[in-house]
């Protein structure tokens, strides 16, 4: 049932000689929420921008389904305060939209009370909902969200993830999002890709939190609520995130415990 909408094969990207994305391959399917996690500088945003076509990979291929409509929420949207803009006008910009399309998106994220407000006075959570509404306007098949809960308090984060989950259910679109914290995003995600330049492990969120490479990256504390899942990895990381040779008792590779996103 799940057809691919995005395929990345062996993508490599480097900036001024520094490798940022190493040999990354993954597929995105219809009606699936995929979360990219990893430490700062792991290349998550770079990878997402590659999917969006904003960055061209040095090698490897990026395939998108023909006429794939993408809605994008960037990591940080700074609008210069000299630019006068209401929320409604922000939603109307750059696309020919019917009033019902806007009303529909506004209702989805519940921001009808903000439409006449200046965009400069919004709180972090309100801004993220407005950005989400704008991303929904083109009726996208894929929503790309770069840290959608940034600058939002814990309760707001939980609400936003629920909202994203509901949007997926209502519209049947796929979601690719970046997150720092797997625990909050867990209930709203089907597939997790844990990366630090290369893909360390990927699969269902429950599996990922007990994966040694996840524990290496995020520390045991973030995994302590999960039962440990006993296997070893084919490589380790030092503090810089470089790959070290496998410890001798490595028995399983990350590929072997990968799971597809099923529904």
């Amino acid at each position, binding site marked *: 049932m799940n057809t691919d909408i995005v395929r990345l094969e062996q993508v490599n990207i480097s900036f*001024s000689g520094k490798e940022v994305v190493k040999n990354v391959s993954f597929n995105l399917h219809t009606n699936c929420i995929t979360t990219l996690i990893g430490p700062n500088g792991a290349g998550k945003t770079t990878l997402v*921008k590659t999917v*969006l*076509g*904003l960055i061209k990979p040095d090698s490897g291929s990026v395939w998108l389904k023909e006429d794939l409509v*993408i809605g*994008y929420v*960037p990591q940080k*949207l700074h*609008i*210069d305060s*000299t*630019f*006068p*803009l*209401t929320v409604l*006008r*922000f939603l109307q*910009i*750059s*696309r020919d939209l019917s009033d019902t399309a806007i009303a529909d998106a506004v209702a989805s994220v519940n921001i009808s009370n903000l439409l006449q407000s*200046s965009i*400069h006075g919004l709180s972090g959570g309100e801004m993220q909902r407005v950005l989400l509404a*704008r991303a929904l306007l*083109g009726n996208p098949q894929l929503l790309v969200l770069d840290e959608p809960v940034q600058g939002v308090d814990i309760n707001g984060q939980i609400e936003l993830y629920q909202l994203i989950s509901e949007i997926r259910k209502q519209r049947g679109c796929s979601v690719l999002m970046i997150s720092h914290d797997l625990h909050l995003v867990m209930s709203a995600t089907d597939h997790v890709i844990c990366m630090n330049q290369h893909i360390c492990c990927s699969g269902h969120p429950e599996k990922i939190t007990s994966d040694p490479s996840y524990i290496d990256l995020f520390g045991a504390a973030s995994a302590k609520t999960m039962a440990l899942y006993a296997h070893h990895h084919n490589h380790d990381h030092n503090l810089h995130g470089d790959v070290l040779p496998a410890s001798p008792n490595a028995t399983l590779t990350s590929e072997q415990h990968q799971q597809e996103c099923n529904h």
Partner: protein
Amino acid sequence: MFYDFLLYALLGGVGVALVAGPLGSFVVWRRMSYFGDSLAHSALLGVAIGIFFEINLNIAIIVCCLLLAILLVAMQKQHFIATDTLLGIMAHSSLSLGLVTISFIEDARIDLMAFLFGDLLAILPEDLLWILLGGVLVLSLLYYYWPQMIAMTINEELAAVEGVSVAKMRLLLMLMIALVIAVAMKIVGVLLITSLLIIPAASARPLSRSPEKMALLASLLGCAAVVIGLLASFEFDTPAGPSVVVAAMAIFMSIYLWPRKASH
């Protein structure tokens, strides 16, 4: 009391102010005022080249500004020098190069002050034609590309994902600014052109709730500054450019000092 030259200057000034409103708004939104300055300085190089090779001054200035705008866009892609440093180098180099070149032209009688600060008497019917052509071209392009330019100004990546060709729009905006600077030079002069772009737009900001309103209001306030400034220049025999800028500043000050409710 109206003389032809004053009428020409008023028509030319109003024409320039109308175009400078929306373009100046982009300069303010995108923090490009130093870019405008650099291009204006290079206009003097255009004057020098035009006189030296005996080609039409308007064409020489326009071509020089357009070429330097393209050069700037190309050089911004390198990462060794920050853009503001680059702009500073280009602004003062081209100004100096222009002044040095002009000093070599012995037989030509050149009123340098007129080029630096603008001159009422310098406006000829031919200049009005250039302002009209340049103005109509820029306003039509702005009208046609407005939604894309606004989207790009809000966020370039978001615009790119939504299908706006950002690099093309950025170059187009810079070329339009270069063109307006080139045709506006005779009225306000090389050193003061940027103020005609940014002061009316900055004055319009606190009174505007939408980008369109700000652009339109900037045009109107610019026209008011031009009319007041040029009439004062005629009445008190003050230099045209500085008089227009002082008028624009007075409008700016009164808007900002005027008590009002919460800002947007």
